[in-house]
């Protein structure tokens, strides 16, 4: 499974929505569940499933699906 598909699947799972509702532009606040707690859950699950670690300095810039995909891809 590629990084983009995996990230979208994680976002859909945390936000309790279908993967078809999640796009690369989906961002914090687009779904009620994507609040601070949801955002942390998304980042933690991405880190765990792709076996990577985001630094605090870069985490602040991860706001939408595209940001997360790009940052994750750069670490693999």
């Amino acid at each position: 499974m590629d990084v983009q598909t995996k990230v979208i699947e994680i976002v859909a799972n945390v936000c309790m929505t279908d993967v078809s509702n999640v796009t690369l532009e989906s961002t914090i606040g687009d779904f009620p569940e994507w609040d601070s707690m949801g955002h942390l859950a998304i980042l933690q699950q991405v880190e765990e499933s792709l076996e990577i670690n985001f630094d605090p300095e870069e985490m602040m810039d991860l706001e939408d699906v595209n940001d997360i995909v790009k940052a994750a891809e750069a670490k693999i």
Partner: protein
Amino acid sequence: MIIEQIIYKHAVETPEKTAVIVGAETVSYAKLWTKICQAASYFEKQDLAEGSRIILSANKEIKFLYSYFGAHMAGLVCVPIDSDTNIVRFQRIMDCSDPVMIVGSLKNRGDYQVIDFDEVTSEISSERKFPSEEEIADLLFTTGTTGLPKGIGLSFKNQWVAANQINIFVGNTADDIELLALPISHSFGLGRIRCVLQKGGTLVFVPGFASMKKFFGELERCKCTGFGMVPASWAYISKMSGDRIGQFSSQLKYIEIGSAAMPIIEKERLMSLLPNTRISMHYGLTEASRSTFISFHDNKNKLNTVGRSSPGVVVKIFDEYGQIIENGIEGEICVKGDHVCSCYWGQSKEDFAKDFYMDYFRTGDYGTIDEDGFISLKSRIKELINVGGKKVSPIEVEEVLNKLEGIKESACIGVYDPVYGEVVKAFVVGTLTPDDNERIKKSMMSLMESHKVPVYIEHILEIPKTHNGKIQRLLLQNM
């Protein structure tokens, strides 16, 4: 005096002063007051009886403020709720408050008619009359110990006094510009609105803490001098942005932190990053907002306490017979002051009186007071789980768990989490195994808010109970 009167006063004396900033929109005190009056006129034209309840979805949009204060001016009682309130809780709030109108945008509205905030405006029709101090302004629904929402009645006086006490301790002035990222469907966030408006300061709304870019962006753009947060917010800010908050040390005059467990090491870290900021932490509950306060920098050797009585508040420790006990001995924390709520909605005066020892409100929390008046929390009778500042009744979660196939009974507790403070852990009895845990969580996700879904599930043979059948949650904590 009531909050609406002071907003009117600011509108007259400093009409051009900015009251609220939401993104690109800036609202002066003069405009805020006009919009409040227009909303009040709309409600008056609906011919609603004084004291009727209206439910408002408490989103951080400026139109919420117009409807909220406008409804007060029209003699209505506001019931602010989160726009994501689940349908079961929403129905219970409907049943209890019996509202005449629902305004805003709700995710789960059932078949009820909901009026958009945009509709709540009308030509100003009459001379405004302010409600009296003793009238009920708001019903705030909290998570009761039984899992049923409980409507706490706060009068205009309760709210005014609480705001005044907080402002005295925190030191707010008219020059303050506050970044409001807290939810405003709860006592803390709504209270911050009243505190800032009481002083004639400026509020800057952001949706929440989730977007650190927006949080720091608005902090910088609007030159904010303070904000409120809960310990879980700090854990999030810290994880997502490292030490960045320290860059604002000369700008941030104050931070108010809500009551929840916060490790001393985190308090000290915040102090070292913001050496000149007045960092205050309160202890309180919706019924008795901010009953105690501690200023971290001023009380470095008392950081393990929740501070001393707030200005104008008396806190005493009572024994089980309703007698005040001496310093150092553990008992129930009880609070006296004009900020204490006026009623539980739908409850008789006699039943409400049972929540008091003399004129001291019983918080349901246990603790001690030391010789300097500092209060230490020992345990909470109410057993609510505090997930990132959101209160979760274990009973509400257990009710849902017990309806799942394969679960005979369950019991939930809060367990420590480095980010959220606490998360839910469920103990279940039945025919399921750990292999079913993900399925259980998925089923729960569709039935309740995600923060209420157990993070940990343990399968045990029997739930420990007293001989009266009451779950022994303390035993579960040690399992």
